[in-house]
């Protein structure tokens, strides 16, 4: 079995706080790998290091066999790394379609062209239309993103990440803020993408995690305390105590 | 040796003066997050009003409340009529509006006081110079400025970092609505704080009156330098503004005082003078560029 992502001994400190403490982890090609753990365990910090927004203090990151540890963020995207943000981060003045369109354009290239017409790039807009019609945002194409509700923005996050056609998708709490119905839909969407791309999924919605994940790693205080199947994780006493609790959900 | 010591003291003094000028700006720009180009106008208003009171009453000391009150009142007025409408807008709208205010205030001062620079008296007590250490004489008025500057620094530091007013102002500069939704009347608070910033500008204007020229447009001359101080120190940091003010004062003074001499050690005197002069005339900008290239957020960047 090949790995799309391999992390070795990753370290990150913020002052006295060790946010990522010697983390080693891998994601298999085609797998949905969930990363769970208490708030502040270091999940987002880990994702930020993977996509290059934060620089690790030590450790190595391999993407599809290439060492990307010191690569700037945009180059990692070119190699097939995509992500969503936990706190939505979108182009607020653009419409939904323009947001997705720009993401498609970014992947498609030709971004330095100053003599073409962006509205004339039919392939870009066709693909944008295609991406949107497969989402719940279809009838909000022309709404300004600033006018979207919170949940709608979260949905747009995913569409934009998909627009860059990643090989490995880093998802930072995609379900948070979604309604019940929309969460179900998102689970279906992600399930449908299984096989097309690999995913590292950070999520607190256990229903979604257990429904989707092939394997689950548990991060506590910056350390991976276990990796296993849904059942193994669900029944691990440490995980129950540190994270799952006995919520009646 | 005495010369170096004296120049150090000069630098310190100049630094404190820079801080005094920048203090109000730190509050309004650094902490409230309002780009107020008309800050220099408030400084000018303080200087003119204070001087007017001082010359009419014949008392330097009465000029202080005169200048402070005038600047603060104008500050309140500006906040209530102009700035308040612009918090929620783009920063650049503030630039345009306060640029307009500069034009208006300059012309109003001309209409009221005429175009001539005016004379701010120095009280007799401050005449002459005192001997601080043997061989080192110093103008006592400058010592007063140092004292006032230090006082303002400490007061501001406490206000901003140790009181709820400070927290609320900082909170309001990032999310006004949320502060209001938690029950605090931000509008009143901001008016008051803006007025305080204006008052500090007026204080600086009046205090430096006997040293500098009190004239129309005096505010624009110091505006750049004070922005530089705030930015080098790290926007939003009182400590930063203070350290940057003093640092800038000392570096600038030392450059002016010794750079040509040092350069003469290894190049032709005329070249040394030319280079020394150009370096020190770009002084504060050069320093700012270097600081920002090394620390893009300034020396003491406030978090976030």
């Amino acid at each position: 079995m090949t790995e799309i992502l391999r992390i070795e001994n990753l370290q990150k400190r913020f002052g006295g706080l060790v946010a990522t403490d010697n983390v080693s982890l891998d994601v298999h090609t085609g797998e949905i790998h969930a990363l769970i753990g208490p708030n502040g365990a270091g999940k987002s910090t880990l994702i930020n290091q993977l996509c290059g927004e934060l620089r690790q203090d030590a450790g190595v990151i391999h993407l599809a066999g290439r060492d990307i540890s010191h690569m700037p963020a945009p180059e990692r995207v070119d190699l097939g790394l995509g992500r969503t943000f936990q706190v939505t981060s979108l182009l607020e003045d653009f419409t939904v379609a323009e947001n997705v369109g720009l993401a498609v354009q970014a992947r498609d290239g030709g971004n330095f062209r100053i003599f073409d017409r962006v509205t004339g790039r039919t392939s870009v807009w066709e693909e944008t239309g295609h991406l949107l019609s497969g989402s719940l945002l279809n009838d909000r194409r022309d709404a300004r993103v600033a006018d979207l509700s919170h949940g709608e923005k979260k949905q747009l996050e995913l569409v934009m990440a998909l627009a860059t056609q990643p090989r490995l998708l880093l998802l930072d709490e995609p379900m948070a803020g979604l309604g019940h119905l929309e969460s179900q839909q998102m689970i279906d969407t992600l399930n449908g993408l299984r096989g097309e791309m690999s995913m590292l999924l950070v999520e607190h919605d256990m229903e979604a995690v257990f429904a989707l994940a092939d394997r689950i790693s548990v991060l506590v205080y910056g350390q991976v305390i276990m990796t296993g199947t849904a059942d193994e994780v669900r029944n691990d006493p440490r995980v129950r105590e540190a994270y799952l609790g006995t919520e009646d959900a | 040796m005495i010369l170096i010591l004296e120049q150090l003291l000069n630098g310190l003094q100049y630094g404190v003066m820079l801080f005094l000028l920048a203090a109000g700006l730190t509050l309004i720009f650094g902490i409230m997050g309002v780009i107020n180009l008309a800050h220099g106008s408030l400084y000018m208003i303080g200087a003119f009003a204070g001087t007017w009171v001082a010359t009419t009453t014949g008392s330097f000391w009465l000029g202080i409340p005169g200048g402070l009150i005038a600047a603060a009142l104008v500050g309140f007025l500006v906040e209530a009529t102009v700035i308040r409408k612009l918090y929620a807008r783009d920063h650049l709208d503030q630039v345009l509006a306060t640029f307009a205010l500069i034009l208006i205030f300059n012309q109003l001062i001309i209409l009221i006081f005429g175009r001539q620079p005016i004379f701010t008296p120095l009280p007799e007590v401050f005449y002459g110079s005192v001997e601080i250490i043997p061989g080192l004489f110093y103008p006592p008025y400058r010592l007063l400025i140092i004292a006032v500057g230090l006082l303002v620094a400490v007061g501001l530091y406490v206000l901003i970092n140790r009181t709820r007013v400070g927290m609320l102002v900082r909170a309001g500069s990032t999310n006004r609505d949320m502060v209001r939704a938690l029950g605090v009347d931000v509008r009143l608070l901001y008016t008051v704080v803006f007025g305080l910033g204006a008052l500090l500008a007026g204080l600086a204007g009046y205090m430096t009156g006997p040293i500098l020229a009190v004239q129309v447009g005096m505010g624009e001359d110091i505006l750049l330098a004070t922005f530089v101080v705030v930015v080098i120190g790290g926007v939003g940091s009182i400590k930063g503004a203070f350290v940057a003010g003093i640092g800038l004062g000392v570096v600038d003074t030392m450059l002016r005082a010794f750079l040509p001499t040092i350069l003469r050690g290894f190049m032709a005197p005329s070249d040394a003078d030319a280079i020394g002069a150009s370096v020190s005339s770009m002084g504060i900008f050069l320093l700012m560029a270097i600081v920002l290239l090394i620390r893009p957020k300034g020396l003491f960047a406030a978090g976030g």
Partner: protein
Amino acid sequence: MRKLILPILLIAIFALMPLIADMVGKNALMTLSARILMYAMAAASLNLILGYGGMVSFGHAAYFGVGAYVVGILYSHWMSEVPIFGLFPGSNQLFVTLPIAMVMSGLAALVIGALSLRTGGVQFIMITLAFAQMIFFLFVSLTAYGGEDGIIIRRANEVPGLNMRDKTTVYYVILVVAVLYFAWMWRVVHSSFGQVLKGIRQNERRMEAMGIATYRYKLYAFVLAGMGAGLAGALMANFLRFTSPDMMHWTKSGEMIIMVILGGLGTFFGPILGAAAFLILEFYLASWTEHWQLGLGLILLVVVLFTKGGIIGAIARLKGGRE
């Protein structure tokens, strides 16, 4: 089609201006509209980075001034027949000086931009200001080129086949360059690059996450803008037949920002309208009263308080469209 109305109208007005000026016997109108064209170009170049790219450069006048000085310096060496650094001959040919002015101001923008773009926000404003002031002081102390007093250019640059001593001819040369420039600008803001630039203004972090190395794009825009300002400055030097450090003083940069905001930030026609409004106000108020700055201040204040998005914003709202 409707989109073409405004540009055609604008070109027609500017093209007819010499005739109109002549008809009503107000030749100064031609001077005024020439200045509007040149400032509009400078403001539009600033708008590219400020309005579309979100980079608040407070040193834009530096490139304007560098462009002007290129014309002035080339002219003075052409006059004295002393090559620059003993190597390059001077010139008084417009087709030589304009490209060189653009290249030099572009180079200045490249260096300053490369350093400044490492910062952001307020720090960016101040560091661009700092570099521009350094350039200002540099030219102030350039005794060889008149220092503070500047360079007097006795004659506008030559264009083969045209009589550049004739003011109307100079005016039309400026108009043609301006139209070409704005046509080009139109392409830029509607191009793929323009779209990326607008994206960067809104959310740089997101753009990086989409694989866009924003620094390079910002620098590219910064250089393009610097070249545009340099072009405008070079024209200005030809038009005024004079250049001085005053052209790159920080207050000039401030004026350009004011023009952009006044017209409408990040809109294509904003800088043109903003430059026009500012210069026309200045021109007429000043001839009306010596306290014209009071009037100008009040008008600007009213505009910013009661319209959103400058003149363009006000027009849009008058038309009842969505803002």
